[in-house]
């Protein structure tokens, strides 16, 4: 109840509103993904405190999930990677004159999924947090090894490229003075590198600047937006009936996919769409405007956002790029999420939960009447958007630490990121590697010291052993699956 009282303060309500609205606009517009926008929100967390900042950043994340569907349905262009699947049947519904109904059902479905996801988070996070209190360095290490294995396999098409990107991220995090023995590493004599490279300019460069360059280079084809009037928003009884169970299935599935490392929101939409198609009595309708193919993936990506909060809040381990930005935001206030968060800072957790309920309701109320406005925003041409977004990125990253060095890092990362995207190297594993690097190194060294140099003593730690066995089993499965004639295909676009 205290959470609701805290979140109903004017500042938090405004933060929630701004986050949700900005997120929706970001979801509609190409160029700035949720990760970059959330990074741009960090100066607000410095001014208004961690809870307000967290509320705003989460608002951006799930707002982007809402917004991404609007352009997918109206113009067949996903504003966000997690809305790629929605294009398939969403645009077909639009062509049949059912755009309004599709948007309304997506908004209602996303609201239900978001609410169920928050309930799941509220229920599971404290339970897992308590369980994680008994975790030692070996359990954390095993957990991170499993996360890296899954991350490299689920991000992008080439696991080897994912693994390489994680290794590069871990290397970047090792630059600077090592806090365990105060030893400077890979600083090449630069003072700026002594404190290490902050991950935010890198994230902004890889996700923001590289995307800006990509849009600038690509040929622009002006989309045609269909007008949606309020009276067209009412779905038919049949559409409503057909949407109920896909929304519920998408919500549950999305929540659990959200627990996986990698672009969980994107993966959840693909898995949810294929599940609906597989169990449908009319699979031939998929691709021709099946309402199930629109509502289920959209429900899944909203609830995946909530699922992705669990590893962050209970273990302090972000599995997705946007939650890595949240971790950075909390660390700016010396708050370390993890098992002790629920006992040391329960105010933050419960305010955050309450604000998400409110934000979700806000999005439902605002999105439907404003759908026409968001459709028009999608029409803004790159020559107008790109200069503004570029300047916002420059000032945004400068304002975090008032550092020109960070701006250089962002631009260099942007150029490298542009080429890596072209060569289909996944970006998220690199960013997560940077964030998890220090924890990984600490866990490695503490585990080795604890086991007196004998890594086989891990056999005596059942949780760590189970996690490691899972990681080994997954690698084995991936290596052997081509020989069985099966191939897992969980292709996901980069989440940004």
């Amino acid at each position, binding site marked *: 109840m205290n959470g609701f009282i805290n979140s109903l303060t004017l500042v938090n309500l405004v933060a929630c509103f701004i986050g949700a609205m900005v997120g929706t606009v970001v979801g509609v517009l190409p160029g700035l993904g949720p990760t970059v926008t959330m990074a741009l929100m960090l*100066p*607000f967390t410095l*001014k208004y405190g961690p809870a307000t900042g967290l509320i705003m950043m989460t608002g951006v994340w799930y707002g982007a999930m809402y917004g991404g569907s609007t352009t997918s349905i109206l113009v067949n262009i996903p504003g966000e990677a997690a809305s790629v699947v929605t294009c398939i049947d969403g645009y077909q519904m639009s062509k049949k004159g059912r755009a309004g109904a599709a948007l309304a059902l997506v908004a209602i479905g996303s609201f239900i999924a978001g609410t169920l996801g928050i309930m799941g988070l509220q229920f599971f996070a404290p339970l897992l947090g308590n369980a994680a209190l008994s975790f030692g360095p070996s359990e954390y290490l095993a957990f991170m090894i499993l996360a890296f294995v899954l991350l490299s396999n689920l991000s992008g098409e080439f696991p*080897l*490229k994912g*693994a*390489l990107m994680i*290794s*590069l991220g*871990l*290397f970047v995090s*090792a630059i600077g003075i*090592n806090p*365990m*023995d105060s*030893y400077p*590493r*890979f600083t090449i004599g630069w003072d700026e590198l002594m404190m290490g490279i902050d991950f935010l300019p890198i994230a902004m460069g890889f996700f923001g*600047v590289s995307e*800006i*360059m990509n849009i*600038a*280079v690509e040929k622009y084809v002006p989309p045609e937006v269909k007008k949606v009037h309020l009276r067209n928003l009412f779905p038919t009884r049949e559409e409503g009936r057909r949407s109920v169970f896909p929304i519920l299935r998408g919500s549950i599935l999305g929540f659990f996919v959200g627990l996986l490392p990698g672009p969980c929101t994107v993966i959840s939409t693909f898995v949810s769409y294929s599940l609906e198609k597989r169990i449908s009595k009319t699979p031939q309708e998929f691709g021709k405007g099946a309402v199930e193919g629109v509502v289920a993936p959209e429900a899944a990506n909203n609830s995946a956002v909530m699922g992705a909060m669990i590893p962050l809040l209970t273990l302090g381990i972000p599995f997705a790029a946007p939650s890595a930005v949240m971790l950075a935001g909390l660390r700016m206030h010396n708050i370390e999420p993890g098992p002790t968060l629920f006992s040391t800072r329960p105010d933050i957790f419960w305010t955050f939960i309450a604000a998400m309920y409110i934000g979700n309701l806000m999005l439902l109320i605002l999105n439907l009447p404003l759908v026409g406005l968001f459709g028009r925003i999608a029409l803004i041409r*790159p*020559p*107008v958007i*790109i*200069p*503004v977004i*570029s*300047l*916002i990125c*420059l*000032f945004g990253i*400068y*304002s975090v630490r*008032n550092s*020109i060095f960070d*701006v*250089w890092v962002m*631009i260099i990362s*942007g*150029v490298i990121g*542009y*080429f890596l995207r*072209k*060569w289909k190297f996944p970006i998220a594993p690199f960013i997560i590697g940077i964030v998890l690097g220090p924890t990984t*190194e600490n866990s*490695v*060294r503490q585990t*080795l*010291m604890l086991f*007196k*140099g*004998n*890594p086989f003593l891990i056999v005596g730690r059942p949780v760590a052993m189970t996690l490691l066995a899972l990681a080994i089993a997954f690698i084995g499965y991936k290596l052997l699956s081509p020989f069985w004639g099966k191939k897992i295909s969980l292709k996901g676009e980069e989440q940004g």
Partner: protein
Amino acid sequence: MGKLKKWSLETVFDFILTGLGIVIIITSLTYGLGTLRRPGPGLYPFFIGLSIAIFGMVLFISELKPRTRPPLFNRGDIKTLLFMIVAFCLWILMIPVLGYVIVTLLVTYVFCKIMMLEGLWKPISISAGTALFIYLLFDYWLYIDLPKGILG
């Protein structure tokens, strides 16, 4: 040299990564690996360097297979990309001297022109709007200490 000419940019990148992995391994050795009981500062980066070198090498070898690759970009794309980088660098180099307001006006205008926004008034109004937005958001609202330059 003849073979090197056939390498794609991606192959060169994989080769550089393999080299980077080897450099990390060698540098880590100079930091001291320690023992498994008492790990030194070089142990952890040593294994990271090893994995970068191995993964980079495997990718490099797989990229050496002859196959048709679509061109990465055309001459026009390179020009746009280079101009964008120059505009970003201009912002960094000029902001301490000219201050954020003038630099925002100038660089936004340059970006508009790179993006082929025609006319004079549209780019000028976008530049002015962006400068106002930056002032209101970062300077007025968030109290960020932005470089004022000659206006300070």
